[in-house]
């Protein structure tokens, strides 16, 4: 430690480095070009009369539009609920040792993933003419009652079933991948503790699979929101896109109403993204990254996570 020592502080680690930052002119140029182009586009959009912004503003909060948005949300949520139930069932069936169960699940996924959702929606719309009546009873023996399909398979329910069953095939694969991603040691440890198959699945496998399932499932949820614009194939006309186009047809102004519909789709997507963010956070508990901060912090900060355990007194 010769002369240099006198200039250094007591410990070299005490002083933070304040280095001169490397100039990065390329970044500034790129940013400037992009901002310039964006400004030009916004200027043209604001001044181009084809966009008819006054019509846009007039119909943005129109009751028919907000009603249609609500119906679109209903279509999305119910279809995804069906997809989740069907998807979980087919994923469990596909992972089953029973060749009949896994074969049937494979067949379902093959058909519903292998044909266009638009075609499937048309089919569901035609179901009432294919099966006009459904007999309830023991086949070829007794008939308890006869149901008129027309009366319960409304266009709305046909749309929801069509969307849900199509999506269920994709969801099954997402769930299967999620379950397969959980280390087999987890199942073993759980079984070795005497937990049943159901307890192991629900308490150990499922929460860990969720981490892998949620991002693609969130994606599919957002995708479903937009796929609902195809329900005219059934035909069901209550959704956001069809309603906006019906208004546009009367006004002869398709562009501002396309913008209105797009604004609503974007707004709903944003809400879904926020929900997804919180779900992901909820199911990433205990995973390195979120844990690293807590390790340095006090254990007191972690205490809330433990509440459910101490709660039960």
């Amino acid at each position, binding site marked *: 430690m010769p002369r240099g020592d006198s200039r250094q502080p007591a410990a070299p680690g005490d002083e933070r480095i304040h280095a001169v930052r490397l100039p990065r002119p390329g970044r500034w140029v790129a940013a400037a070009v992009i901002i310039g182009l964006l400004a030009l586009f916004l200027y043209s959009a604001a001044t181009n009369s084809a966009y008819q912004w006054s019509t846009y503003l007039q119909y943005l909060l129109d009751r028919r539009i907000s009603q249609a948005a609500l119906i679109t949300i209903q279509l999305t949520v119910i279809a995804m609920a069906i997809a989740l139930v069907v998807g979980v069932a087919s994923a469990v069936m596909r992972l089953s040792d029973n060749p009949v169960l896994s074969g049937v699940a494979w067949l379902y996924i093959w058909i519903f993933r292998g044909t266009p959702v638009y075609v499937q929606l048309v089919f569901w719309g035609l179901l009432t003419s294919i099966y006009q009546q459904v007999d309830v009873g023991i086949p070829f023996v007794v008939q308890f009652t006869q149901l008129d399909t027309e009366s319960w398979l409304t266009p709305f329910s046909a749309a929801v079933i069509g969307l849900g069953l199509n999506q269920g095939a994709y969801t099954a694969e997402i769930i299967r991948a999620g379950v397969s991603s959980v280390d087999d040691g987890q199942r*073993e440890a759980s*079984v*070795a*503790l*005497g*937990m049943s198959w159901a307890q192991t699945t629900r308490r150990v496998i499922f929460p*860990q699979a969720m981490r892998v399932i949620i991002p693609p499932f969130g994606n599919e949820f957002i995708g479903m929101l937009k796929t609902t614009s195809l329900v005219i194939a059934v035909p069901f006309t209550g959704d956001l896109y069809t309603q906006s186009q019906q208004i546009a047809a009367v006004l002869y102004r398709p562009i501002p109403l396309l913008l209105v519909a797009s604004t609503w789709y974007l707004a709903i997507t944003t809400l879904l993204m926020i929900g997804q963010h919180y779900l992901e956070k909820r199911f990433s508990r205990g995973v390195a990254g979120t844990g690293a901060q807590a390790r340095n912090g006090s254990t007191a900060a972690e205490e809330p996570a433990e509440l459910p*355990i101490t709660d039960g007194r």
Partner: protein
Amino acid sequence: MSERAILERAGQATQPMVRAQDVRKSFQDTEVLKGISLEVQTSEVMCLVGPSGSGKSTFLRCINHLEAVDGGRLYVDGTLVGYDERDGRLHELHPRRAAAQRRDIGMVFQRFNLFPHMTALGNITEAPVRVRKDSRRAATEHGRELLERVGLGGHASSYPSQLSGGQQQRVAIARALAMRPKLMLFDEPTSALDPELVGEVLDVMRSLAESGMTMIVVTHEMGFAREVGDHLVFMDDGVVVEAGSPRSVLTDPQHERTRSFLSKVL
């Protein structure tokens, strides 16, 4: 029937905790266990050693029916594992009864297998609450005692990812103990640990042995086997090659295979 009753009564006093009779197990065409017979008495510690692939882990997994045996009989505390013997035939156990058998047998894995989405305490209380239907409060109290016992009293709310390997394995031991098992199985509990963390896990196991727990330990830690083990079994290629007191097997092996294995690990 009467013969069995007499046998059972006679066995009461000295009934071994684990009794294996000619246990066999194959995976596809490979026979992994070629007739293992051994006994572990209550409160004994048996160490299973041998080269990898010798079948010692498979045997351990057969004891709590994580693997089903193909031949022979395996009894834990006098009860046949995994099957019911009626009318001269073996019947597969309903999963519920197989699970009930596992309840009393704790298992510690090489790679800990803690549940990453639960805190240390959550890992420990899960099975008592779900399987034994203990009250949440009693399970938590017992769980905290166990954490204290493995020297992790301050880590109840830590997630596994926040703990070192040695700490995780100690939580895993506490998790197994939470079911108040009568037998503990250890499957190479220190093999996945950094060398400096091995000691803390072995210390916990040593104190567990001193408390009278019956233990079967698959291990490469010959020092532990010598100090803590009551019996040492050397397995190779699916058979028991040599068994005896750890001291005699380790210092005076009778078989060539034992000698050559020990010369590599000691």
